[in-house]
């Protein structure tokens, strides 16, 4: 049998070096490191101890490179307004693979309304045929994400849906949500919802700050997120439902989740979008629409509290919140422009350059927050198990890439990285 050997690769989470023997198609048993089952690997040995046959044709010397589980993204959108849906899926898949992501959960959007079997079938078919990356759709909480009528959860679950979300929308009908949670709890589904009170955040565009005052933009109060999180937690606790708090952006939001986890009364997990760990409201500068996101970029104290939340596990995962927007849309004024930025294309290099390299996050924390924890939340089983296996990637920290339109497979330009250099080269799949 023809194997590929990887010599002397450093296992990123703990810094130990190993040799790996890879075999396409697998060999039955899946070896583990740190309890992680690794796809496509049939043997692991400490560096230098693996017997590599003299005639082996495919040997990669990975000295100086890191090996780690590929990332899993719990929150991405693929739709590109006005473009072909299959092409959008294909592009997002390429972007994710380039960024070191092997699988992701796709949020419903205007064009991808996952509230019926047909749209899930269309999506799955397109993913199978067009995407190099695994994509799992999040089913809608309400029909059309309109916030009123419950989607058919059992029908969605039968099509493999484990997570329910109304995407950018947050249901404001609490009676509906309470009943939906009670019903879906018995199906083992997880509600992924952002903390928000829509009445408080409608027609707001920035964190209330020097920036919102200077630019004359109405401020999005932090209390809206905090009230929203508390509300969702209390409903979920009462209904016995699993809840996943999306894109936490405020320090107090982190604190509320920390208290809820400590109380043990509610099955809660939480995420932060990568951009909320990297930028603050000042980045908006003179109406730079790239930095228009929901919830808005907040201040440095919030950013620091979010990172602390990731480090102590209050925030389970970092997500891309990848949102491609056509260039024309982002050229409009700040109020008219759509929200969101893309992140998948250089996801792991950005995480490395901005968080790991400066010492803000360890590799072990990164693997937990960007791979194992999100994969476990998205796992089809009810027992917190991991997906069957996670592929490995090689990461070369010495490589530097300048981001340009030519190396953004997602096909849109709404990323603050444009023109900037990021460190790290990703090899995926091995």
């Amino acid at each position, binding site marked *: 049998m023809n194997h590929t050997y990887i010599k002397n690769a450093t296992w990123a989470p703990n810094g130990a070096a190993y040799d790996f023997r890879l075999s396409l198609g697998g060999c039955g048993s899946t070896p583990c490191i740190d309890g992680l089952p690794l796809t496509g690997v049939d043997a692991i040995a400490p560096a230098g101890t693996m017997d590599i046959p003299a005639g082996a044709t495919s040997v990669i010397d990975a000295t100086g490179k890191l090996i780690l589980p590929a990332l899993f993204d719990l929150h991405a959108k693929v739709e590109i307004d006005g473009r072909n849906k299959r092409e959008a899926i294909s592009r997002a898949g390429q972007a994710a693979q380039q960024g070191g992501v092997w699988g992701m959960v796709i949020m419903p959007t205007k064009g991808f309304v996952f509230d019926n079997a047909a749209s899930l079938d269309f999506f799955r078919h397109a993913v199978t045929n067009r995407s190099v990356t695994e994509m799992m759709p999040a089913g809608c909480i309400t029909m059309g994400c309109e916030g009123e009528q419950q989607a058919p959860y059992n029908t969605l679950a039968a099509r493999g849906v484990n997570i329910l979300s109304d995407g950018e929308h947050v249901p404001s009908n609490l009676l509906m949500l309470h009943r939906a949670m009670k019903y879906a709890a018995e199906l083992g589904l997880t509600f992924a919802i952002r903390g928000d009170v829509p009445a408080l955040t409608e027609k707001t565009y920035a964190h209330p700050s020097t920036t919102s005052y200077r630019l*004359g933009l109405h401020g999005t109060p932090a209390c809206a997120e905090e009230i929203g999180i508390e509300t969702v937690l209390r409903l979920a606790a009462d209904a016995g439902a699993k809840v996943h708090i999306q894109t936490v952006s405020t320090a107090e939001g982190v604190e509320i989740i920390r208290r809820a986890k400590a109380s043990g009364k509610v099955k809660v997990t939480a995420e932060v979008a990568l951009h909320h760990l990297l930028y603050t409201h000042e980045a908006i500068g003179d109406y730079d629409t790239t930095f228009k996101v929901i919830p808005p970029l907040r201040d440095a104290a919030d950013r620091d509290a979010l990172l602390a939340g990731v480090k102590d596990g209050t925030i389970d995962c970092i997500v891309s919140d990848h949102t491609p927007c056509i260039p024309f849309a982002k*050229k409009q004024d*700040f109020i*008219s422009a759509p929200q969101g930025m893309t992140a998948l294309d250089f996801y792991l290099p950005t995480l490395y350059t901005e968080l790991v390299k400066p010492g803000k996050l360890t590799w072990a924390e990164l693997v937990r927050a960007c791979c194992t924890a999100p994969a476990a939340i998205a796992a089809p089983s009810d027992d917190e198990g991991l997906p069957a296996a996670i592929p490995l990637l090689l990461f070369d920290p010495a490589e530097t890439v300048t981001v340009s339109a030519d190396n953004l497979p997602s096909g849109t330009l709404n990323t603050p990285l444009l023109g900037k250099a990021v460190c790290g080269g990703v090899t995926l799949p091995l």
Partner: protein
Amino acid sequence: MTPRKDLLTIESLSTEEIHAILDSATEMKAAFLRDGEQLPNLHGRSVLTLFYEPSTRTRSSFELAARRLGADVTTFTVATSSVVKGESVHDTIDTLMSMKVDYIIVRHKNSGIPAVIGRHCKAAVVNAGDGAHAHPSQAFLDAFTIREKYGTVAGKRIVIIGDILHSRVARSTSNILRRLGAEVAYMGPGPLVPPTAHTGIPRFTDWDAVFEWKPDVIYLLRVQNERIDTPFFPAADYHRSFGVTEERLQRIADLDLSIMHPGPVNRGVELCDAAMDYRNCLVCNQVQNGVVARMAILNHLTPATL
């Protein structure tokens, strides 16, 4: 001075430019007061007013200013145009540029639109008010009016009273006055005055504190109920809490302070009737100076179409 294409905000101008525009407004005023005199500065140029929000005063003021400088003026009426059919701002501007427009005077409810237009076209773009962001021509006419009244802006104290949160006038006027060495304070209903930490401007909550601060000018903002869907304060309280009542007018008169207001005035809300007839009420001066300030602004800009 490098030629400037657009006037979007006061922040974007150098102090030298601010002084130059104010000085040129002084010259423009002399010409303006000589009946019927038309200056040749914009002769052969085409000025277009593009108001996405209703406005009579600012628009007329700009049109008059452009005509006094010899320009051709076109009024683009949004309500009866392709805009209501869903045309994007970019496409509207492309259409207008095909008509060889040199100056576009724009007002829009969205903060930041004039900058988008300025980047997109060769015409000189003047921001005539964008959302709660900026209203630089108002700032110039206010600064000019104070300079005319007191000889200088430096060292004067101006308190701006009312809905600061939604006011582009408060932002631009406080900006220019501070750039010229004045001190500015804000007063108004709690939810409508952003914290000093965001604005860098002291914030009062009542008239006693205002009088104690010894202002030279009381600048009242219009209560813009048309912009507010959910009330920020009980409207019936406004005059009693923040308006110039007869009693406060007496105090203002005793101290010989000036009153300013960007108009249109809501009588009985921001100002009692008598305040409009007060000897130091500068509201009509502001309106007249609006034309000359706008002449100076148009004269200062250089479209990339030339």
